[in-house]
């Protein structure tokens, strides 16, 4: 391989990759040494549970207030990622016509297609994978939160035992607040909604609205259809699951969705379309079939 063709190594990129792999290696080694369940409990469940208990103890001993403040805090922490996600989705939407053009032009040549796509992403400053990052980051916290809420509301001895094993000993106020006040309006927060309609509708409705606000319009028919399916299926499924969840969990979903809707409005105000200006080369209108045909003709001519 000649020096000219050897791929150049970006030292910054290399450092980043090595760091990621080092973290992965440490996590894997720790997982096998200490146990995955221990890591999961110590890194996610216990901090989340104790934070919730702390908020509950100091904010009027109200589960709903504690959950609201915690969710707000969580959303604020992940706000930069959410903004990044939104920016990415909007930029992706903006370059959709160009991507379609590339598909038409290089559909048969996968390697070339990939190269051109990468080039386009670079020019548009888009990393398609970065759109998933906020979800990946929030996912373990979300599951931990669900488990923490179950343990916190402790309706059974097994759950109370799990709570007892997870409470930090130096949070002195804890013994006096257990068991958590599980009454809210007509609900026992540890059990599903006795009227199996109100909470499922609220969960499904707020989720649908949030998704509708968050999903950008797509020019690609297949993506649009997929988005549409998601927008209907997810709220329906979560509405059904709410009939099985403890109502405390349903309350969390509603609060989380409402905060999400509010934040989406705020982000929409912060990031104006002007902030997402893309280079003209990127947003140039897609070539028509005739233009593409003409270009191919010219290339053939040039080869000759």
């Amino acid at each position: 391989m000649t020096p000219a063709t050897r791929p150049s190594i970006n030292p910054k990129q290399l450092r980043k990759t090595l760091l990621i792999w080092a973290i992965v290696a440490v996590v894997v080694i720790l997982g096998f040494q200490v146990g995955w369940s221990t890591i999961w409990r110590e890194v996610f469940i216990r901090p989340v549970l104790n934070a919730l208990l702390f908020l509950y103890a100091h904010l009027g001993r109200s589960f709903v207030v504690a959950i609201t403040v915690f969710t707000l805090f969580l959303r604020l922490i992940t706000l930069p990622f959410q903004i990044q996600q939104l920016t990415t989705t909007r930029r992706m939407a903006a370059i959709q016509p160009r991507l379609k053009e590339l598909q038409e032009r290089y559909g048969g040549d996968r390697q070339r297609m990939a190269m051109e796509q990468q080039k386009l992403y670079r020019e548009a400053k888009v990393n398609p994978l970065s759109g998933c990052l906020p979800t990946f980051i929030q996912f373990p916290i979300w599951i931990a939160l669900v488990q923490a809420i179950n343990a916190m509301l402790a309706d059974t001895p097994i759950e109370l035992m799990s709570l007892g094993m997870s409470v930090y000993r130096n949070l002195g106020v804890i013994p006096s607040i257990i068991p958590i006040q599980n009454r809210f309006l007509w609900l026992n927060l540890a059990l599903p909604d006795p009227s199996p309609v109100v909470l499922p509708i609220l969960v499904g409705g707020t989720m649908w609205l949030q998704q509708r606000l968050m999903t950008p319009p797509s020019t690609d028919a297949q993506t649009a259809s997929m988005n549409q399916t998601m927008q209907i299926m997810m709220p329906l499924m979560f509405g059904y699951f709410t009939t099985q969840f403890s109502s405390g969990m349903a309350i969390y979903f509603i609060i989380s969705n409402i905060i999400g809707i509010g934040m989406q409005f705020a982000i929409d105000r912060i990031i104006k379309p002007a902030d997402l200006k893309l280079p003209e080369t990127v947003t140039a209108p897609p070539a028509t079939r005739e233009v593409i045909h003409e270009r191919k003709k010219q290339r053939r001519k040039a080869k000759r």
Partner: protein
Amino acid sequence: MKVKQRLGFVLILVVSLGLLVSGCVSRGVSNPGWTVLAINQDIAYAVLNTGKVVALDAASGSEKWVYPIAQASGGLFRRQPAGDPPLNAVYGVPVFTDELVLAGTYDNKVVAFVQATGLKAWEYVAQGSVMGGMVVDGEQVYLGGSDGRVYALKTSAAGAELLWSTQAAKHAIWGVPVLTDDLVIVGSLDHYVYALKRADGELVWDHDMGAAVAGDITLADDLVLVGGVANKLTALEIASGDVVWESQFKQWVWGEAFLDGGVVYVSSLDGQLHALDPRTGETKWDTVLQGAARSGPALAGDYLVIGTAEGNIYRVEKATGKAELLYKSAGRILSRPAVSGNRVLVGTDSGQILALDTTVVGGAPVWQYPAVTK
């Protein structure tokens, strides 16, 4: 192709979310109860955490009877067998009347089985879950419910009749009550201990413990010993409910204290077993075990036998507190062992019953149920 892709996408979404939710939902899926057992006349009566009730010969482990006869299959798509379903989650140790064995369930029931045959004699439905066990005196049975009520029942082979029920507590009662000649005393998650008249359930005294009382309480001469979430064991005067002494530990005291030969033995959730003077609460010895000790110990000759949430089953010398590992099981031990001679029976949360010889350290179980087939 598009339709196929879309269907595939929806299918993956539904399956992933289904799996996720089944792992997160608390009710049903993660509320199997504990495997609890008690021995009466050399027969061990156990409720497994699958809802199955069995009577086993304590010496050999041979099955006398099993309820229900057809067992429901587990998994996502459960098939309900014909006839009686398994019991809902059971947390309290079974108790005995002359002819019956009784178990309290999460779905508010007291279920009675004929000891000799395993036939279901009757069910009594309370207004709240029956989490703790019951206490029996002749035909009378006393229990607390998750509705905060204390129930007094008169039982026979034919059925149960409510003598009285009192809304004693503002929160659930998960522990087993204790009886004196004229009182029934019970702890509640509402932080209080209540003493009620046995005759009619009228309140005699109550005492604020400052933290939830999740477990059973114990009688020790003229004292009642109460553990709880406040990391301490408190001795109250039976007559008045006044505090006589308190012994502070590092974690919750959930397991029932055990009084033997002028010493109180009690475990705490940080995996310690403590021996105390019942008159002063002074510590005689502490022993550290591996894993949380949810339940109290059982007496086996000169030893106490106790299981932990890490599956370790220990025998501990009563005199010195020296602990030796009898056996390490795959499942967690969350309920009190039962003893018959030098044999101790332990229920695990993987739905097994192990019979161990207390004279042999580190040996294999004498028998286990269900039997392991090679």
